[in-house]
């Protein structure tokens, strides 16, 4: 069926449509949702809309099992945040949590049915050595990266190598900024920290302000080369935007903040593609305003070619002939944005050689 390529995306946009799905469609839908890391979120969405009964018996357990895992991860993230807070008790500044764990801490709709790989935190750069030592004392250790990768992280990245807990195996990413030092744009982390907000019931834990959360999510998505969960991250953005848009002057605030943090281009792409994929209600006048951040017409056409492919589920049924080229282009583009050429070329060359050697 030619319509099956964007089945998951269409289902996220119009969940009601499932009542017309044949068993063959469910076969594809479950597979696309699993590949995109969206089984639990879709299950949650269908349940919320009172559509669970419309899922055929054969397919139902896949959603329920994924939601079971998501529910357990939700509890685990809450608990883990308390452990991290306790490990960093000696710090006067609050612990700022980013991305998925922040949505859980702030009890946002974007937390529902979300699956986690790690917990991201943001600390001031000068506190990094002390934070790392404290986390090590509490049982988190640098993961088994190669010496090259470790050096690469420390010298060029906006985070230190991921730390894994020896017993619980949870992974923390400690960031000091939201983009690498070498990147084209340098949003000032101090500005982000200055506007962070406290969350209920979790003393000492803060999350970024609504606009900053969205800008961070967008920046992350449009600077990341591998995008294994591009569509999942796009649904995060969709949920964050819908929730924040309830506030009266949200949209002008978002645009002004993007400009201030030099993240306008990422916001432009984010709004363009959440509308394209998920029909997120972004007012037309907002779209007109962010046009100021748009790249030229030719670049935009190229980006559309890339992002409409790489943000689709990473599943054979969603791919076309150009998908592999689009994924490669996104990878190169992300690195291009993150590093100047004199660093990028040796880095990619090394990665290519090491990758060959492994197979």
């Amino acid at each position, binding site marked *: 069926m030619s319509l099956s390529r964007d089945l998951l995306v269409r289902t996220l946009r119009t969940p009601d449509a499932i009542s017309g799905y044949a068993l063959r469609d469910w076969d594809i839908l479950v597979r696309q949702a699993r590949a995109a890391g969206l089984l639990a979120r879709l299950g949650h969405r269908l349940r919320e809309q009172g559509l669970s009964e419309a899922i055929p018996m054969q397919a139902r*357990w896949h959603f329920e099992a994924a939601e079971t895992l998501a529910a*357990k991860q939700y509890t685990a993230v809450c608990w883990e945040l308390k452990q991290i807070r306790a490990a960093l008790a000696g710090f006067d500044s609050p612990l700022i949590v980013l991305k998925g764990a922040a949505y859980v801490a702030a009890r946002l709709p974007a937390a529902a049915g979300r699956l986690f790989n790690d917990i991201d935190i943001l600390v001031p750069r000068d506190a990094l050595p002390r934070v790392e030592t404290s986390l090590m004392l509490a049982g988190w250790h640098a993961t088994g990266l190669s010496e090259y990768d470790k050096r690469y992280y420390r010298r060029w990245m906006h985070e230190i190598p991921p730390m894994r807990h020896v017993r619980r195996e949870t992974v923390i990413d400690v960031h000091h900024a939201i983009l690498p030092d070498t990147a084209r744009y340098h949003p000032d982390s101090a500005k982000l920290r200055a506007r962070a907000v406290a969350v209920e019931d979790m003393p000492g834990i803060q999350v970024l302000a609504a606009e900053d959360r969205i800008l961070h999510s967008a920046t992350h998505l449009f600077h990341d080369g591998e995008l294994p969960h591009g569509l999942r991250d796009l649904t995060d953005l969709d949920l964050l935007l819908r929730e924040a848009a309830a506030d009266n002057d949200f949209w002008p605030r978002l645009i002004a903040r993007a400009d201030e943090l030099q993240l306008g281009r990422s916001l432009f792409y984010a709004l363009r593609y959440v509308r394209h994929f998920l029909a997120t209600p972004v007012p037309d006048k907002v779209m007109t305003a962010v046009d100021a951040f748009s790249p030229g017409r030719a670049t935009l056409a190229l980006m559309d070619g890339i992002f409409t492919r790489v943000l689709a589920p990473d599943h054979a049924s969603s791919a076309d002939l150009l998908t592999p080229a689009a994924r490669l282009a996104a990878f190169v583009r992300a690195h291009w944005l993150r590093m100047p050429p004199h660093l990028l070329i040796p880095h990619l060359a090394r990665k290519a050689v090491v990758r060959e050697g492994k197979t």
Partner: protein
Amino acid sequence: MRLQQLSTGELRRQLAGAGLWIRTGPFSHRVQSRIPFVMEGLAELYGQFEVSGADEAFADFHVAVNPPASLRRWLRPQAAFSFDGVQPFKPLPRDQAFPMLEWGLNWCVSTQAHQYLIIHAAVVEKNGQAAILPAPPGSGKSTLTAGLVLSGWRLLSDELALVDRKTGLIQPLPRPVSLKNKSIEVMRRFAPEVFINRPSHDTVKGTVAHMRPPDDSVRRQHEPARPGWVIFPRWEAGAPVALTPRSRAQTFMFLAQNAFNYSHLGADGFRVGTALIDRTTCYDFHYSQLHEAVAAFDRLADSTRPD
């Protein structure tokens, strides 16, 4: 339709094409493979399983075992397992292609099917009561399981005890029984009529072969069983059979540690696990002679026969 009703040509065509649709216990699979050993294993061991049905348009697990796309294949033939395009394991020598399918299918269940509490244990049933046999490798669990199912016990699973979280009953998954090293010969002597497929040598578990599940167990694969006992078998050279009661608390702890998804289920894992322990009696079991072990299990089943 059963797999044995497919001609060899038809089976090959389906496996090499869109994949063979096959149901095992509560799960449906679409299996794709161009490797002859995989087709041979399926033909020899899965003859009684349903291969097409009303639900055929949907499959729970889309799996493939095929030569990997690397240069290595010219040096040394290999096989790679993939779950809907994702390879969870490194490729293995081609000679292990069929066991790799078995391990891959187990992996699909143990990482996805959280509607069950999944314990690493064999399960057999007689007179309506299931015996759960958890045990570390080398304890003789598979040999005992094979011996019991060749002596009138029903096979529910040799590897994955699926405890239904809603009913507390054990869901059968009567796939072929994996036999390792010496137990392959032991089973051939115990039941000369049994079918055991071609062994794969030098696997991570040593030499591995699979025994065809009894027809009756496959026919009753949709019939859940009530958990009756949790029995820890231990093979010991020269030991007389001995069935000794065992602490329920310790047994619970062991089951929780040996469940694939206990921690994924959160509080519900505890509820399901304790409910299971509450309705079973727990034993340690020592044996050296397989026929004596079977006789001891028969006595146990007869003594606690429900009216």
